[in-house]
């Protein structure tokens, strides 16, 4: 699936450039795209380094376990495959709470840590497990309470009420998260039924 999409993006793009005569733009796109990706990763180094360091302290201090204990009733239903008190649950919950406050920079390292723990749970296989897909679905729908970036853009352009979209954003995000969870469940049951 990923392979097909990846190749199609290139091939369709190049064919189009041939028809439109925009081949020079494709040439610069190759280098600009690569550069942008590296710039993002370099930017991630600072954030990942600091947060993963801090999170290691949180883990050793037992904070992750405390957090997952508080929110366990909800999380247990979302991730039935994760054993009780497993560190993965703590990371998932910190990832979700960081997302809620629009702290994407803090959410990413915790999401990655969670994925790592889930991979261990899955015997180190390079295949996505059920819990991984659920975590991903929740992240792409991104439960947001405070869309900080958007609010700052609205301020920049002189909005009378920059935060008036907070309510609609919360509603929309709640619907999309619910949708993501339901879709995830649907695909999960389809997978298991096929196997039986």
């Amino acid at each position, binding site marked *: 699936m990923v392979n097909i999409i990846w190749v199609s993006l290139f091939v369709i793009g190049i064919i189009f450039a041939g028809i439109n005569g925009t081949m020079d733009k494709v040439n610069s796109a190759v280098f600009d795209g690569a550069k942008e990706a590296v710039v993002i990763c370099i930017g991630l180094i600072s954030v990942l380094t600091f947060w993963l360091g801090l999170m290691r302290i949180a883990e050793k201090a037992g904070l992750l376990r405390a957090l997952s204990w508080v929110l366990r009733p909800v999380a247990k239903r979302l991730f039935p495959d994760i054993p009780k008190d497993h560190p993965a649950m703590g990371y998932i919950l910190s990832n979700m709470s960081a997302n809620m406050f629009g702290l994407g920079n803090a959410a990413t390292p915790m999401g990655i840590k969670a994925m790592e723990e889930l991979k261990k749970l899955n015997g180190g296989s390079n295949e996505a497990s059920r819990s991984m897909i659920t975590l991903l679905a929740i992240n792409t729908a991104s439960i947001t309470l405070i*869309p900080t970036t958007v609010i700052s853009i609205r301020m920049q352009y002189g909005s009378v009420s920059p935060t008036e979209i907070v309510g609609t954003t919360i509603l929309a995000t709640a619907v999309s998260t619910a*949708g993501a969870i339901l879709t995830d469940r649907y695909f999960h049951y389809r*997978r298991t039924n096929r196997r039986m």
Partner: protein
Amino acid sequence: MAWITAISVWLIPLIIAIVLVAGTLKRVPTYEIFVEGAKEGVKMSFSIIPYLVGMMVAISVFRESGAMEFFVSLFRPALEMAGVPAEIVPLALIRPLSGTGALGMTSDLIATHGPDSFIGRLASTMQGSTDTTFYVLTVYFGAVGIKKMGDALKVGLIADVIGITAAIIIVSLVFL
């Protein structure tokens, strides 16, 4: 709404303080443990590079060649019939593909139509209520070396469609 900004400003320093104080109380050798965990962050950032470079080059070729624009114009009539304002169509289609692209487009829509216009509010809500599926997928799975994604991409894209539809309906109900 001042409390919302206050929470955003206070949250990160507060988390840092709580973690450090809790660590000290539990007699964790805080600084050594920090460095140990932080090293992992450096390694992780480098391991993401190949995944992100591969994906972002493909997407920027697709966009710069004009192919993205063509597909947007292809979907436009159908989406407009469904009640999606024409100005918002490109944003809706690019949101799952490119985070920077979508952010640029949102700023552009807010700049041209004004932040307090219907389009401005809709763009703001859409930008805030879903995330870039391709980016999340690439970074999260890339960092831990997941090669078989299973249904993850399908689930993510369907969630995007639901989110964008919800944004349009909710903003229309609240602000029209």
